[in-house]
């Protein structure tokens, strides 16, 4: 088959998949969620300083542009629901928008959206491969490998389209309302699509072998969970000796097995780290030094600021040291990012290699699925 003919067939498979998706109620449910999130973003209003951080420095200033010496006298406020709810900013407007971006990208699109897309599209391939439906398609001149990869690409294209609508709509709405346009938010589109592609390749493999939607749904979810567990388990294995030298090291054989498993399997957890980076979330935590420790040792005492926060437990009551509010989720994020920092510091996290090896795994899984499909008797 010539390349133009293959592209022609691919275009039609994509077109058919869009029609299949448009005919489903789930599509309209997802469009509604996008609409609601966009409306939520349009309802946001922020009154207060845009940024408290002079360029190149850590946060030292309050809303009054004076050095922070006590409670912030002019923290600003955010309203949502077109003024229905108002609350005090814990930091500046940029941080607030970043928080909203993180919530929308990580939880709404990243967790709920990916889960919904996986469940929804899990039935597309089994329906496509069902013998009475596939027999007529397979009696057409398009080769089997093209039909399967074409359908796979079509599903990815559709999910990418949905993500693009979601991110562009919420980004525009928040930008219009707050004047803050963080381009990093749009990087979430390819990153989340990468995560979906990895998991969906496994779903495609299950579809070819079983043609069963239920197996595809649960199989791909379990696979996602296993990959996450291996991903974070490996990072924990590397980070814990740095963060807490009192924790006994794992046996070398276990460490090696975890390392091999990490590099073989896809790395959805690393995608999450890349998402954080794309969202500039780590900027919020720059004041934390790279040598940040959760556990104080005689050789490595905690920094005075963090020591105060931990000692008073003030982070749990939203009142941090030196008048800087430290909400619990910020502290949790700081902890997580410190793990990331320690890994990066040790050269253990390679974003490019991580993405490439994940894509390689997805390609290999898809190749196995294609080979099986090409030799299956119908």
């Amino acid at each position, binding site marked *: *088959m010539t390349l133009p*003919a293959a592209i*022609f*067939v691919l275009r*039609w498979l994509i*077109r*058919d998949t869009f*029609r*299949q998706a*448009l*005919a*489903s109620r789930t599509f309209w449910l997802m469009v509604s969620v996008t609409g609601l999130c966009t409306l939520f973003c349009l309802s946001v209003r922020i009154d207060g300083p845009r940024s408290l951080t002079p360029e190149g420095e850590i946060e030292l200033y309050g809303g009054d542009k004076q050095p922070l010496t006590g409670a912030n006298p002019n923290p600003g406020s955010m309203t949502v629901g077109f003024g229905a709810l108002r609350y005090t900013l814990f930091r500046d407007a940029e941080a607030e928008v970043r928080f909203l971006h993180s919530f929308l990208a990580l939880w709404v699109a990243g967790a709920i959206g990916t889960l919904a897309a996986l469940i929804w599209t899990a039935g597309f391939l089994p*329906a496509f491969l*069902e013998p*009475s*439906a596939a*027999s*007529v*398609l*397979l*009696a*057409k*001149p*398009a*080769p089997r490998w093209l039909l399967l990869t074409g359908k796979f690409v079509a599903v990815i294209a559709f999910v990418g389209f949905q993500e693009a609508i979601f991110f562009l709509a919420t980004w525009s709405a928040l930008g219009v309302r707050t004047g803050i346009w963080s381009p990093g938010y749009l990087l979430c589109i390819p990153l989340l699509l990468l995560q979906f592609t990895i998991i969906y390749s496994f779903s495609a493999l299950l579809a070819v072998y079983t043609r069963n939607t239920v197996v595809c749904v649960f199989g791909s979810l379990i696979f996602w969970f296993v990959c996450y567990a291996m991903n974070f388990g490996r990072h924990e294995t590397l980070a814990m000796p740095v963060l807490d030298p009192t924790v006994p090291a794992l046996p070398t054989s276990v460490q090696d097995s975890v390392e091999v498993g990490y590099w073989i399997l896809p790395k959805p957890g690393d995608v999450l780290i890349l998402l954080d980076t794309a969202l500039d979330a780590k900027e919020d935590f720059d004041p934390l030094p790279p040598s940040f420790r959760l556990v104080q040792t005689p050789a490595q005492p905690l920094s005075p600021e963090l020591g105060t926060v931990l000692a008073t437990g003030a982070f749990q009551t939203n009142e941090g040291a030196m008048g800087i509010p430290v909400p619990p989720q910020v502290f949790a994020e700081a902890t997580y990012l410190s793990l990331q920092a320690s890994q990066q510091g040790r050269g253990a996290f390679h974003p490019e290699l991580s993405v490439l090896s994940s894509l390689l795994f997805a390609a290999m899984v898809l190749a196995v699925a294609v080979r099986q499909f090409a030799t299956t*008797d*119908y």
Partner: protein
Amino acid sequence: MSTSAVAEFEGVVKDYPAGLLRRRTLRAVDEVSFRLEPGEVLALLGPNRAGKTTLVKILLCLCGPTSGHVSRLGRPANDRRTLAKVGYVHEHPAFPRYLTAAGLLEYYGALSLIPFEEVRRRIPPLLERVGLSDRSQEPIARFSKGMVQRLAVAQALINEPDLLVLDEPHEGLDPAGRRLVADLIREQRREGRTVLLVSHVLSEVEQLCDRVAVLAGGRLVHLGPLSSLTRDPATGATRPLEDALRPLYEISA
């Protein structure tokens, strides 16, 4: 292997794995050889599980033979390019329910590598031909079984095939639908195209077919003109096809 035949089976054997561990094999087609000549209508007959559908699937590259050779339109059967000139009606067609009749023909026409404008030009007369022109924009989900079958016939003709393979095309059709299929087969023959018909409707076979191939237990037990079956060798009188087939079908029992 001759290149003049539209399709040719030569010593074709097909074994399927069977049993819990799939170590045993079940022979569905056993050393079958015959040719499909240009412009003829050949009926493939046989009792259930005789291997008719398996033979059709091998011809259409839906499954491969365990041994033997199959050619289609002058090329080996695994050369998919010739499928562009083959039309196929599946015994139990299942089409995407979200598509309309016209949408399905567009999609299947595209997968037969026909330019879009050409497909669009062919759709209205085809739907008219199968009696679905007034339902062209209706989702298939709302179609009855007979309407789906008519649509299956239309999609098989969208690429103006040189070889039309009909696997039980009368399934679910009312008398008008059956007449429609019969007329289409006659039309194909008039235009010099070849038809392979798998059917249990013997009255249609008697009216439409030039030759008959009878399979029983996976083996070809008879191949020849229809008259070679319907003429009683003892008396020379014409007998019903059903009577002629009964002893052949009993071979597999």
